[in-house]
């Protein structure tokens, strides 16, 4: 009797050992791939990388003595961790509108999409016009040129939008608790300064699928929640509305549960074009373009006194320099720069230069496009330089036009 128990005990011991060892090995190997490339500091916490769909298993063992002989037994219990879909879209432009210039092309608003669910997912993205202005005032009052709004995903090669690198139109394989930057790129119509165009970025959860391949949109969970229909991936993916589907919870299969939050504000809309609701597989946030002046002028002054120093005493010369720069990517028409002669100073005749070339003070457009007003009826109260040469020349972005004039202190 005792011998039989001993043999049985030995057999069961080996079986249990084998089960435990194989379970441990399986666990380690399934996580090893995930561990690659991640911080070694996380290695001590073996269970950090919980993933939906994992079977959670534990095996209890019992040992005992009966009639002087040892016995042992074991019992396992398993269930499957279900999939919680949760993610956030946030405007990431420093909490303010992105400055743009009238008629600008490829104006960029940046967003961040963060996967807070418990497994890797793809996310489909789209951007739509929305209102009101997420930054309060002034009101949203224009839209980018129709058909020009596109969305691209940061490649990870160079920070900031790079047209050549950032060409992906969906977020591929976003691991739990990681983020990806997404750019909305659009062309601006002709607008006056301060006008605002609000844009919502909407992310839609999708299956992770294969690396580099856009996963199928998940437009319904297993809990009766659905996504509204939407067009994603710059028009290439047309997702129908989900069909409500309730699957009984089972310990043996992975159920999917939408747990995404609602949009915070009225402008944070879903593809139903109403404020995003909880648990619809979508989340959104809004950013805005705001039109700014395309022309920047940097004005500096240098004092030149009669003794060659920099003391601004009476009779000393003040040399003013205006660096005129056009921002953005659209040339500016009719760009005329004027500046007043300061009080208690007198314009130095013939001192205007444009990019080093001496300009005449006379209103003589055929000779040059600068003048002192009015050199023929002194005192001169202002200077004027017409960079567009009478409306003929468009001033291109990039180059700096340098205007210099001088006055003397009375």
């Amino acid at each position, binding site marked *: 009797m005792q011998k039989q128990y001993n043999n049985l005990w030995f057999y069961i011991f080996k079986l249990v050992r084998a089960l435990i060892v194989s379970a441990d090995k399986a666990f380690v190997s399934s996580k090893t791939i995930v561990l690659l490339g991640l911080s070694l500091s996380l290695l001590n916490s073996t269970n950090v990388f919980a993933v939906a769909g994992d079977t959670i298993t*534990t095996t209890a063992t019992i040992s005992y003595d009966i009639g002087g002989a040892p016995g042992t*037994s074991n019992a*396992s219990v398993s269930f499957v961790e279900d999939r919680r879909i949760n993610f956030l879209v946030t405007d990431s432009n420093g909490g303010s509108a992105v400055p743009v210039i009238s008629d600008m092309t490829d104006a960029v608003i940046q967003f961040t999409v963060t996967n807070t669910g418990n497994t890797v997912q793809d996310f489909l993205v789209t951007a739509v016009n929305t209102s009101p202005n997420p930054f309060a005032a002034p009101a949203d009052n224009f839209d980018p040129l129709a058909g020009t709004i596109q969305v691209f995903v940061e490649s990870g090669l160079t920070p900031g939008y790079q047209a050549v690198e950032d060409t992906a139109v969906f977020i591929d394989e976003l691991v739990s608790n990681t983020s990806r930057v997404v750019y909305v790129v659009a062309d601006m119509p002709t607008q006056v300064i301060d006008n605002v165009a609000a844009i919502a970025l909407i992310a839609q959860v999708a299956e992770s699928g294969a690396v580099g391949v856009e996963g199928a949109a998940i437009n319904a969970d297993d809990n009766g929640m659905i996504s509204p229909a939407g067009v994603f991936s710059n028009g290439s993916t047309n997702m129908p509305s989900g069909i409500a589907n309730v699957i009984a919870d089972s310990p043996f299969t992975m159920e999917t549960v939408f747990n995404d939050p609602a949009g915070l504000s009225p402008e944070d809309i879903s593809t139903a074009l109403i404020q995003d609701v909880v648990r619809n597989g979508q989340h959104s946030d809004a950013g805005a373009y705001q039109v700014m002046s395309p022309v920047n002028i940097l004005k500096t002054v240098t004092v030149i006194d009669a003794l060659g120093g920099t003391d601004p005493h009476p009779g000393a010369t003040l040399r003013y320099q205006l660096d005129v720069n056009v921002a953005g990517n659209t040339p500016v028409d009719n760009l005329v720069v004027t500046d007043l002669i300061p009080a208690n100073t007198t314009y130095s005749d013939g001192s205007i230069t444009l990019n080093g070339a001496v300009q005449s003070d006379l209103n003589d457009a055929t000779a040059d496009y600068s003048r002192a007003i009015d050199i023929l009826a002194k005192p001169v109260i202002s200077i004027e330089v017409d960079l567009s040469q009478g409306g003929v020349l468009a001033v291109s972005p990039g180059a700096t036009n340098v205007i210099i004039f001088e006055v003397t202190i009375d």
Partner: protein
Amino acid sequence: MKNLKENHMRNIWKAVLLSVMVMFSAVGAHAEEGAIRFSNNAFKQVISKSADGSVQYDYVEPGLVLPDDVILYEIVFENISTQDVSNIVVNNPIANNSSYRGSSATGDSTEITFSVDGKGFASADSLTVKDKTGRVWKAKPEDYTAIRWVYKKSLKPGAKSKVTYKTTIK
């Protein structure tokens, strides 16, 4: 889904344990028939607030299990032999994707110890871990990898007992 009240946990054995055991037989939970009938069961904790403000803990089938859910494990052992069974020791590793909840292990007439490596066992107060620099810290519940219950009595024929603990899903 059937809800189980904690104050009726003893009735679970009759009412639900059998069905749970059948349910889990597909994934290997079972009692190896020897002197001891042994089973391992998992329930999801569901907290609800009644109208009067009292909090109620229900334990249900772990059908929908998401991060941060609390799982109650109940390990039952029954003497199905005709002799006393002594020196009973129950050992249970903490499951993958799970962390032990501090002070949750229970068991009548048991001495409970824990392990951070599955080999050395010590009481919760004296268990330590080493960090990467070799510095020794008191082990936190989430560091535990296994629990051991030493049953201090002998189990009479027909008698049964149980031990329990809780985990949080990662």
